[in-house]
């Protein structure tokens, strides 16, 4: 019964992060000046994280109610995460204009929009607007990619 609670996985994930933090803390070299070295606080935080992992596990074992999760829409969620990953990784190499236009149109469709023409027009207008705001008014350069702008 308790093995079904997602909090079991949560406690395990916390334990993993705790160990990573703890290792990072313990392996920080101490240059030896000052009273408290740079390794102390990260180590304490890692140790306390481990305590919260055990605490959460005990809570689950004692039968505390699992989080009330709604059924997931797996497909739009998976596609959104994938599209976002591709967009963020392509942002610099492909440039803002190409990556953002492609992402906007694709993501709107993933999120249930069925008006392709409207989405294309709105996306391009939005991209042009953002481009003018950042590059022209604020003179903040955005990645160009293969395009000249």
């Amino acid at each position, binding site marked *: 019964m308790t093995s079904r609670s997602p909090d079991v996985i949560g406690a395990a994930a916390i334990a993993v992060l705790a160990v990573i933090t703890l290792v990072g803390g313990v392996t920080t070299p101490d240059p030896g000046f000052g009273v408290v070295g740079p390794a102390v606080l990260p180590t304490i935080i890692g140790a306390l994280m481990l305590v919260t992992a055990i605490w959460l596990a005990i809570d689950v074992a004692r039968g505390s109610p699992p989080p009330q999760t709604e059924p997931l829409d797996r497909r739009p969620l998976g596609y959104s995460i994938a599209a976002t990953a591709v967009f963020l990784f392509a942002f610099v190499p492909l440039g803002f204009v190409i990556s*953002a236009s492609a992402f906007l149109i694709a993501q709107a469709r993933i999120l249930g929009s069925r008006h392709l023409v409207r989405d294309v027009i709105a996306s391009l207008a939005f991209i042009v607007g953002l481009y003018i705001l950042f590059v022209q008014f604020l003179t903040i350069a955005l990645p160009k990619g293969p395009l000249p702008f």
Partner: protein
Amino acid sequence: MEIFGSLLGGFATALSPVNLLYAGIGVVLGTAIGVLPGIGPALTISLLLPITFSLDPVAAFIMFGGIYYGAMYGGSTTSILVNAPGESASVVTALDGYQMAKNGRAGAALATSAIGSFVAGTLATLGLMIFATILVQQAVKLGPPEYFAIMIVALSAVTSLSGTSAPKAVFATLLGLALGLIGLDNQTGQLRLTYGIDALEEGIDVVLGAIGLFALSEVFWYAATLRSQEEHRETIRGSVWMTGDEFRRSVPAWLRGSGIGFFIGALPGAGATVASFISYAVEKRVSKHKAQFGKGAIEGVAAPEAANNAAAGGHLVPLLGLGIPGSGTTAVMLAAFQIYGLQPGPLLFSTRPDLVWGLIASLYIANVMLLVLNLPLVGIWVKLLDIPKPLLFAGITVISAVGVYSLNRNAFDLVVVFVLGVMGFLMKRYEFPLAPVILGIVLGPLIDNNLRRGMIMTDGNFITLLTRPGTAAILAVAVLFLVLPFAVRLYGRARGRKDLATFAEAPEG
């Protein structure tokens, strides 16, 4: 009477045409993001940080103040008309607000929340002025040990007041602290928690935390709950105004909400969301119309809307007086101060009175602007809900990417923000609070710094550090924060009082 001289100076700053313009931009943006789901004030200020590099800090903070107050006004509109709160601090408003709208009293609900927000915002700004000045006079006596203790109070409060599961809240805080410590240690030049990744040397900016945890995770959340998204929008019938009876019932609720909101907000770590929940509970207890609660009681709209606005003013007290943020939004504002090389606290009051008092004065002005924007013009804001949600959420991701990239022109930051976005989604789904993570990122290096400097003062004796009179008193408050909510809940359960049994179990703010 020194305050009034300073305040007059502040008004002279705030009333300059340029600063009025930025206050205006701030309140319009703030109301818009308050109405729109998925974006809040912490995120908006994060996204605007790169843009404000080129601005004068006075103008930038006047704009941020307008955004913060405006978001609190705007959040109520969607709660009332669509039963979908635009901000977590307006969740409780939806309980009675949407019922009022269904009963055809949408106009009255919107009016009581707008006027209540104005009353509360103005009173809270007055309180901010008085308490921040007092705090500043005391703060000069505080050393690193006391600052360390106050930050422990902030973390205890945000931990004990957010979410239902204590280990999850504590973990969220620790995760934030760990993220905050990544990178170069400024006392020894040692690299910490970078695991050999060069790109982590600069550390993880709080802006990345806010955008990943508050923006990308919201988009993923929307995608994951696509099937359950449907909207029944109520229309405003008749004028946006109250009857005499509704007005008489609103006034005491506004005042109680303002008081509760300000003082809860001023405690570092307690959010506007908690303030709105507590003031709703109080109203329900003192009301003569108990049976109406949940079915459209006007007090149930008036009090929490006053409380969340007053809490925004309250949050600025520890930020301006001590330089210690108590909420996600003020944490990002502290980051903004640091970008300008400014440290809020006693020193800022003496070195940059134009900034501090200009900001305070502009908050009064912003309240007046917001009353106009939200009462007669409320119909325009409702139109924002016509933006197709798929395009809105796709657009949030694009703006996030642009904001993150323009911060450091660093492609690696985009990877960090993606990881934080997925993590934020998982945490939200499994009921881990997110606000403590943001607060932890900002407070991590500050706690580390003050602890280590404090330990030098006490020759490495931690007990001496904890038992200095100031530190001991402050830490006693931290213990109180950790114990009190649990004690109240236990008492409530023992006495069968459901309102107390779930005391302060609010979502993060």
